[in-house]
């Protein structure tokens, strides 16, 4: 993957339009999704995503070709989102991306489960949410997440673990977790 990234970057540095398009295609979904999660607003995410790629191509010559490209690009996205959040007025409304629903409406509580997870994510503090999204949605490993967030691996693990516990707690509070009774516990129904 790194060799493939390096070849693509070299073509981009020669202003190859197809290479530029290919690089955008490869990373725009992840960049945009991360921005939506961090900013909790689609329009802001769109603006920041454009800003991210402008900065990516402007500083592409400084990318270390021995390292994977995705963490470097996502690191730029995280920084831009942080800057954007520090400069804008806090919006009181819920994240607009929560209106996104699953493609099918299953007969069980799956849609409700998805909604509760999305709400729980939106309520996490930004660093926790970023770590959670990078791991569970984008499949990044701890070392890459640490590089993206510019924090030690231990810090990233702590953030992710705490984020999970908060999400789990919300699922329990919202009745998404069935009560499990073991054989050793007395059956109160028998009196």
């Amino acid at each position, binding site marked *: 993957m790194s060799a493939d990234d390096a070849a693509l970057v070299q073509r981009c540095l020669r202003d190859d339009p197809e290479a530029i398009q290919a690089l955008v295609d490869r990373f*725009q979904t992840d960049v945009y999704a991360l921005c939506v999660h961090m900013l909790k607003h689609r329009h802001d995410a769109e603006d920041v995503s454009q800003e991210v790629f402008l900065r990516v191509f402007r500083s592409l010559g400084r990318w270390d070709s021995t390292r994977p490209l995705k963490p470097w690009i996502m690191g730029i996205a995280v920084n831009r989102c942080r800057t954007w959040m520090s400069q804008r007025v806090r919006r009181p409304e819920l994240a607009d991306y929560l209106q996104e629903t699953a493609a099918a409406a299953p007969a069980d509580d799956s849609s409700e489960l998805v909604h509760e997870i999305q709400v729980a994510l939106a309520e996490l503090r930004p660093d926790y949410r970023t770590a959670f999204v990078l791991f569970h949605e984008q499949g990044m490993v701890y070392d890459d997440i640490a590089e993206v967030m510019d924090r030690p691996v231990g810090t990233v693990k702590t953030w992710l673990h705490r984020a999970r516990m908060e999400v789990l707690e919300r699922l329990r509070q919202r009745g998404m977790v069935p009560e499990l009774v073991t054989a050793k516990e007395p059956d109160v129904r028998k009196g």
Partner: protein
Amino acid sequence: MNCTESLELLQTRLDGMPIRDRAPLDAHLIECAECRSLHAAAGRLTEGLGLLPRIKPPVHLRSVIVQKVLRKDPVLPTRQPWLRREALYVAAMAASLMFALFLGYGWSGRSGKGDSKVVVVRQEPASLTQSVSEASTAMVSLGRRTAAETVGQTKMLVPEPIPTPPQADSDPVEVALAPPMISLREAQESMTVGLNPVTTSARRAFNLFVRDMNPVAVEQ
């Protein structure tokens, strides 16, 4: 196994790593309802994460980005927060100084008094400390002039008592005028001086209160 170890295995499970020996964990979950509940929640979280809809970018985003990159559009500048704060402080002090100067020149023109002080502003750029000092001096001077103006105008509002004419068939009656309210004026002036740092509206409110308290004050 205790709860701490159970939660560590919960995190391992959510990391997507297999648990090699489940027996101790299963034994603990039989005994501990809390850990059993958390592990059940972790199962539901894993299930839900697989169902989360993928956030997709708008269709036009790709073409917009490529166009901007090919045009080499400039990126938005990133200002350092501390630079922003410094700029705000300097701008606020400069605005205060300009406002004070504007009022100062306006007041001295209207009062026409020879003892009005004019705040001289150096044309060359001054340091932040000097600007703060000048602004403070200007504000104090402005406060004193405003207080003097207000006191003077308030005096004009105090009605002079109309002496009653003497009766024709009686001895002239000395109309005893109310003694001049010297102590009240002194208190008023001392209060005005003491209130120099206070806003103009507070001083005017106090002077109006004094006027309403005794309308028969006589100016010496």
